[in-house]
């Protein structure tokens, strides 16, 4: 029997899962010269809270939509997005000011397996903007009672290191944090070199490893962790492709058998090792 207009009305308005939910920009914090963190609050309804590593689609009305990892979640449905200005939409996001409206849908994708890491020795390796999707994971792990938590943060230069206040806070919480940059002036009190070099220098086996950053850096750091003894199925990386629909329908983020908007962004290293070796993926 066909449904009537009255039947639809009886169960309420159908909800479009792809419809963005309006959020107000409540704070803008400059992280570096071209990276900002926006704090957004729902205007009416809110989206589900994101788990560490998940992303949302952020829609700037009249410009377009991009995937952005959630870098913090707060009470009342607040969420933070850390964005680098590289294209039309991200430039519009970075240019947003308090009071502006941005549409949010999601959260989408997989999360860092923080619950499984409880009680184990965890290494987190973040490069550049890759610290954003790991920020809430480190916060969660620091409070989970991991056996040991080591964080390696890599950046291009000292003033490109994200969340310096969080880095200090994590250290106060007992997290072993190593910050390294590609080049630095004399006054820099961290290391100079790659995140991979730090992983190698640690010279320790970790039970679980989370890596996020440029793909070349992730590949290198994951291999270094495995050389130190971590099992490949205990290494997790966050992969990005051209996430577009967020619900594994459009196929733009396909990596072999994976739709990264659904099966990622966080994936187990042994599931993607061979896929990443294929050129052009």
């Amino acid at each position, binding site marked *: 029997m066909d449904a009537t207009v009255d039947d639809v009305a009886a169960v309420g308005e159908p909800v479009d899962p792809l419809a963005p939910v309006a959020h107000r920009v409540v704070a803008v914090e400059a992280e570096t010269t*071209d990276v900002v963190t926006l704090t957004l609050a729902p205007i009416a309804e809110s989206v589900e809270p994101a788990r560490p590593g998940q992303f949302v689609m952020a829609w700037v009305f009249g410009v377009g939509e991009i995937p952005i990892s959630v870098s913090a979640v707060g009470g009342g449905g607040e969420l933070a997005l850390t964005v*680098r200005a*590289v294209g039309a939409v991200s430039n519009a996001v970075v240019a947003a000011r308090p009071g502006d409206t941005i549409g949010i849908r999601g959260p989408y994708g997989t999360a860092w397996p923080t619950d499984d890491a409880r009680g184990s020795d965890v290494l987190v390796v973040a*490069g*550049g903007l890759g610290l954003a999707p790991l920020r809430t994971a480190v916060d969660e792990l620091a409070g989970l009672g991991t056996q040991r938590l080591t964080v390696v943060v*890599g*950046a*291009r230069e000292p003033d*490109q290191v994200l969340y310096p206040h969080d880095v200090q806070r994590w250290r106060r919480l007992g997290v072993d944090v190593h910050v*390294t940059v*590609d*080049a*630095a*002036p*004399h006054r*820099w*009190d961290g*290391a*100079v*070199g*790659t995140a*991979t*070099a730090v992983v*190698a*220098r640690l*010279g320790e086996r970790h039970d679980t490893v989370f890596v996020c*950053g*440029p793909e*070349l*850096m992730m590949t*290198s750091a994951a291999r270094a962790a495995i050389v130190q003894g971590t099992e490949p199925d205990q290494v997790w990386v966050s992969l990005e492709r051209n996430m577009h629909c967020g619900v594994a329908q459009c196929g733009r983020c396909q990596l072999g058998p994976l739709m990264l908007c659904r099966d990622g962004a966080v994936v187990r290293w042994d599931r993607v090792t061979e896929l990443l070796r294929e050129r052009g993926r």
Partner: protein
Amino acid sequence: MSHDRTDAGDIRRALGDHAFFAGMDPRHLDTLARMAMWSDHPAHSWLARAGDPPDWFHAIVDGRVGIEIDTPGRDPLIVATVHDGDVVGWSWFVDRQPWQFDVVALDDVRSIAIEVDPLLDACASSEGLRHELTTRLLRVVTSRLHDTRMQLVDVYGRDR
């Protein structure tokens, strides 16, 4: 920089404990210990300047040193840090080349300084020692080459 040859036994033990020399034949460690001394470098002092003759080879025991490039028209730039367990100054091994970069103590640094001339003589007369050092230095060079390539790619640059 201050040098201290006072305790040869202490130096020998420290060489045996140092990551760079781990697993080395004890006879070679004995040889190295005879040409080594403690070397202390206050923070911000130079271990070597680019162009200096390669008189000393340093195994870092404590603190960080920076490998620095000074380019006219801009501030000096540290392009790598070397930490405890690593070594700095291996250009001597290839045709006794001078230091290629400035090396600055970023903290108060303690190193085991090994005199290069007697070390080269020892390598010339001992194939075993030469092989041990070649293998270890190749590891260092491989690691630094990897780092340099990654830095060259500028993985954290825009649009990546």
